[in-house]
């Protein structure tokens, strides 16, 4: 009896969780399958569902979507550039701070973590001006550099937590065999922290792919926008075709969701490593 009661209780929670979580996502997909003429019907499911919106989005059949492919490419470029730079910068820094026994290592670590204590929307206004001074406004570098600055401290922290499980004796014996510091980094450190590189790489890709505020502030010409900024433009006019926007939004949402779920195992263990001292 108590077992049945337990299942009923858990089942009830599960239903609430699924409705709460799924409703906005379901609504997005539903709207993307709704013909534009029925956008205002407010139905639970369109009377005549069609893939017309997807066809229009992929063939850029609306002024809002004139640069859809370029913008997708921009999003891809920004995401991969951010990912590559975060992996490079964070792995060298975490190696130096964690494995070389430097006196000033704790200072750099604290300095890096300090980045997270500034609410990100706050840095946006001065950063906009500063990017203007660096003459890279409306250029992908402005976005990439900002994203690298925000993703790296976390990346360093996760990699250092992970590297604690790699025995320091490995470095020592390599040194005895005459290995140089770059050799230890490349042949011992990198292969051994590889799982955390997968988690961090994914984290950086998703962060860059999803970023809205900085992209919205820094990028201005249409062919240079990333996809979320273009989608945001749909709200600026009242007669914008929201069903079409939702179809583009679904196309834009699929890669990160697919990526997230394919490396989910690495993500959960990788990114929560060290948040709990057991």
């Amino acid at each position, binding site marked *: 009896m108590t077992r049945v009661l337990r299942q009923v209780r*858990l089942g009830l929670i599960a239903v609430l*969780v*699924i409705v709460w*979580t*799924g*409703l*906005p*996502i379901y*609504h*997005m997909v539903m709207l993307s399958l709704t013909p534009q003429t029925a*956008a*205002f019907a*407010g*139905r*639970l499911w369109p009377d005549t569902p069609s893939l017309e919106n997807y066809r229009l989005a992929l063939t850029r059949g609306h002024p809002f979507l004139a640069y859809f492919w370029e913008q997708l490419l921009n999003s891809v470029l920004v995401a991969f550039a951010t990912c590559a730079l975060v992996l*490079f*910068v964070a792995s*060298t820094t975490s*190696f*130096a*701070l964690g494995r*070389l*026994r*430097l006196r000033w290592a704790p200072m750099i670590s604290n300095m*890096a973590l300090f980045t997270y*204590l*500034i*609410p*990100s*929307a*706050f*840095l*946006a*206004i*001065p*950063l906009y*001006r*500063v990017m203007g001074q660096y003459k890279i406004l409306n250029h992908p570098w402005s976005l990439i*550099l900002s994203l*690298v600055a925000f993703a*790296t401290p976390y990346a*360093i922290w996760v990699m250092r937590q992970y590297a604690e499980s790699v025995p320091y004796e490995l470095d020592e014996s390599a040194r*005895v065999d005459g290995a140089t*510091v*770059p050799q230890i980094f490349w042949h011992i450190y990198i292969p051994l922290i590889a799982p955390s590189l997968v988690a961090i790489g994914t984290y950086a890709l998703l962060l860059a792919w*999803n970023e*809205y*505020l900085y992209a919205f502030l820094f990028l201005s010409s249409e062919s240079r926008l990333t996809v*979320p900024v273009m989608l945001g433009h749909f*709200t600026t006019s009242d007669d914008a075709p*929201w069903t079409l926007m*939702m179809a583009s*939004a679904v196309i*834009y949402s699929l890669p990160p*969701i697919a990526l997230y*779920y394919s490396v989910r195992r690495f993500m959960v263990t990788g990114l*929560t490593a060290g*948040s*709990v*001292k057991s």
Partner: protein
Amino acid sequence: MSNRIAAARIQTAPGRVQSDAAWGVILVIPYVVVFVFVVVYPILYGMVLGSNPDSYRKIFSDPIYLRCAWNTLVFLIVAVNLKLLLALFLSGFFYNTDTWIRWVGIVFLLPWAAPTLPAIFSIRWMFNSEWGMINNLLFRLLGIDGPLWLVKPNLAFLLVIMTHIWKFLPFWTIILLAGRMAIPKDHYEAANVDGATRLQVFRFITFPALKNLYITSTLLSTIWSVGDFNSVYLLTGGGPWDATHVLSTLGIRYAFNIGDIPTGVATVITSLPLVIPIVVVLIRRLGRGE
């Protein structure tokens, strides 16, 4: 042979330390460069921009600012605590190892995996009081005209809070779940043998073990939520009648919609009396390894 190696190690030890330090500097330089150019300099520049007292006179006499400061406070207190309490509760749900609960967990992670903007726009359309799905359902099922969700400031702000929770609940649930996983199982077994009730188990085993993590999470989440621009900007745009702004969106509004950058910076600086104490407490806690 081993003597020679030992001798070599002793001989090269000082040189090694030096080369380690040199390599350390070289390897850290890329990050320090990014940090200086993208974090330190903009902060200092922001302080210069926000140092004009006139900007503060201007915002403190603006009724929109006062409403927005109040909103920010309500947002932080209600959204953060409700989110963490729900996360604490749901981490208990996902602690169960039944296979079907794992599948629910996979669905539950969607808001975290999906990009923010499309999801918020979807919520925005769904709650449109004239043609949205929610009011349409209310009308057809109950025959009532649904509330004017995004037209009434208080309701709109409630939806902002719900949207924020929707997006960030999975993340904090995972963190607290990881905390629960770290509690040794035999504590629970011992409690079962003693015939403890569920409430007692939570009160005497789970909560004491999670307490520090829970408090640190609340503080971190508070700081990050001060910077949550998307939940407000994409759902209501600060409207209706600028009644749902929080400091981050109002700062952007002053700086870019009105073109007054110093006032925009001043707006976000006024949150420092709230943010700095939390940061100080957090640094102490994190420094102690909690």
